[in-house]
């Protein structure tokens, strides 16, 4: 670590991991509700558990992105962070607002929450992933602005690298597209259409810029490959991501009351969305193969390689499987979508945040470059446990989805939704099993921070 202000990243990373645990616990609860319908009913109905599960994911990834930015921007810009105090203040505001919102979900009925937060003044609640009370949304905007100001000022006064620039564009895009969350017309078609301007343009747009720059940073640091080469790759990857992803938004406009031509535009462009992810995989492996040094932090390299592969599989391959409109006609809104969502989020965004945490944490804990060999082995175990169980979660959900599509939508005698759900119960049990393994993997991951704490780090080869 070169600058003391990078230390502000540490609480962000710790909070991210803590919320990650919460997300997985609620995932396990939901998985159980899929097979034991009245589990925890009526205390925690499925919709509440899901809201907590998805909102925690978004919040902890945002914590991860912010922590990552506070860590890497000063190092890239070769200057201290503009205002570490502002960063610390925003951390607490964001954490308290986030925790209060989650508690709100859990403690009072959603309709009551809407009432006490005066949703009727500016109704924005009750839409998937954007369930937060309007006041929380405003809080998110304020935190995002303060964060962008802090990061932007640091970049302005320091060295302007491509990684910093791309990261900044991604973060600004994140904040700008979030503003569509405040647009909630009475017309459900318009509502759905612009809802995707937040959701799609985040995860299949500007977040890929953040992903790309974080990956490039970790690769520069761990492989020692020439910055010029890595930056060139970064530009081409994010160019392809936006070129395919922007019009690729159309693959959400097939069946929501928007004109039919989106079936063509959406299919053609989203069919190319795997290209940037494929390039990212090639990029990561290429750089590691060309490495000029053996970095002592092996798990960080593993996470970086893993994110390339899993993002390509989850976002690229599983996305492509159901993105063409004739296929999507049958798979839209089934467990196929859930399968894709799980692996894509894990591969693209969870793993990149874990990669940067893995890289930065040893330094934030006062070590030179890496944890002890013992700790690294435990962390790599957690990598494989979580990654393989996520592959199985995806496969089981895909199995469930294929059966669901067949029984409910394609067979000569289509069955009602709930009948079909009973028939595919086995897959949900298997998914729950894989989910428990994932939780074990996460516990092992956390354990890796405490194991071999006092032992020396392996020497650089």
């Amino acid at each position: 670590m070169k600058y003391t202000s990078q230390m502000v990243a540490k609480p962000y990373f710790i909070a991210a991991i803590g919320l990650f645990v919460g997300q997985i616990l609620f995932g396990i609860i939901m998985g159980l509700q899929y097979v034991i319908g009245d589990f925890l009913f009526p205390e925690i109905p499925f919709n509440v558990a899901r809201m907590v599960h998805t909102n925690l994911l978004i919040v902890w990834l945002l914590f991860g992105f912010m922590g990552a930015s506070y860590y890497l921007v000063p190092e890239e810009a070769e200057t201290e962070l503009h205002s570490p105090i502002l960063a610390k203040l925003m951390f607490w505001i964001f954490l308290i607002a986030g925790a209060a919102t989650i508690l709100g979900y859990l403690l009072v009925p959603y309709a009551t929450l809407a009432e006490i937060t005066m949703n009727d003044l500016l109704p924005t609640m009750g839409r998937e992933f954007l369930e937060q009370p309007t006041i929380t949304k405003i809080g998110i905007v304020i935190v995002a602005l303060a964060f962008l100001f802090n990061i932007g000022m640091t970049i302005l006064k320091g060295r302007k690298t491509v990684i910093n620039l791309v990261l900044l564009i991604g973060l600004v895009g994140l904040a700008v597209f979030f503003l569509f969350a405040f647009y909630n017309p009475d017309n459900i078609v318009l509502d759905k259409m612009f809802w995707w301007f937040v959701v799609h343009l985040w995860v299949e747009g500007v977040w890929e810029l953040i992903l790309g720059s974080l990956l490039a940073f970790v690769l520069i640091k761990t492989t020692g490959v020439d910055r010029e080469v890595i930056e060139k790759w970064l530009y081409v990857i994010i160019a392809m991501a936006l070129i395919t992803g922007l019009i690729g938004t159309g693959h959400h406009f097939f069946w929501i009351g928007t004109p039919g031509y989106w079936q063509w535009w959406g299919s053609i462009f989203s069919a190319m969305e795997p290209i940037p992810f494929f390039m990212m995989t090639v990029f990561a492996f290429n750089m590691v193969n060309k490495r000029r040094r053996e970095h002592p932090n092996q798990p960080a390299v593993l996470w970086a390689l893993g994110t390339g592969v899993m993002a390509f599989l989850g976002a690229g391959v599983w996305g492509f499987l159901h993105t063409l409109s004739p296929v999507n006609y049958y798979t839209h809104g089934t467990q196929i979508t859930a399968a894709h969502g799980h692996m894509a989020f894990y591969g693209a965004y969870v793993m990149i945040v874990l990669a940067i945490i893995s890289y930065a944490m040893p330094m934030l804990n006062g070590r030179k470059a890496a944890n002890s060999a013992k700790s690294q082995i435990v962390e790599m175990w957690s990598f494989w446990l979580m990654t393989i169980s996520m592959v199985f979660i995806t496969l089981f959900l895909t199995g469930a989805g294929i059966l669901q599509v067949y029984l409910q939508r394609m067979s000569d005698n289509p069955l009602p939704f709930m009948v079909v759900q009973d028939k595919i119960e086995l897959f949900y049990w298997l998914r729950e099993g894989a989910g428990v393994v994932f939780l074990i993997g996460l516990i092992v991951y956390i354990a890796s921070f405490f194991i071999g704490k006092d032992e020396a780090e392996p020497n650089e080869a």
Partner: protein
Amino acid sequence: MSQAFTKSMARNIFYGGSMFFFLLLLVLTFDTVESLPQTDNRENLTAQVAKGKHVWENNNCIGCHTLLGEGAYFAPELGNVHKRLGKEGVIAFIKFRPKNGIPGRRSMPQFNLTDDELDAVAEFLKYTSEINTQNWPPNIQG
């Protein structure tokens, strides 16, 4: 003839390509918004439908159900539920959910909606079922 591929070229492709496709997205979005009246059933968007949408949102229905295929996949698709159950069926289903659920089964909470709210949400689902969704879902089961 230099075959070196320069960083400035990569940067130009990023900025040029992104701007290009962002403008294209804006144009297509504009065209879509202009032509939505043909498909989005707005002539039937009454005040009661708008109210129903708020009831729908304030009770987080999307947390279990899908609407036009979007939402959670825990409970049935409701974009065409009006065609499946009819208005009275929809109202009755929501109204008579047991408070403590059905043992062992996925259960829908009892939301204690007023008669007006029930009517509004049913009207909202009727309106939604009349949106031109390019023939989706494939059949009545959603």
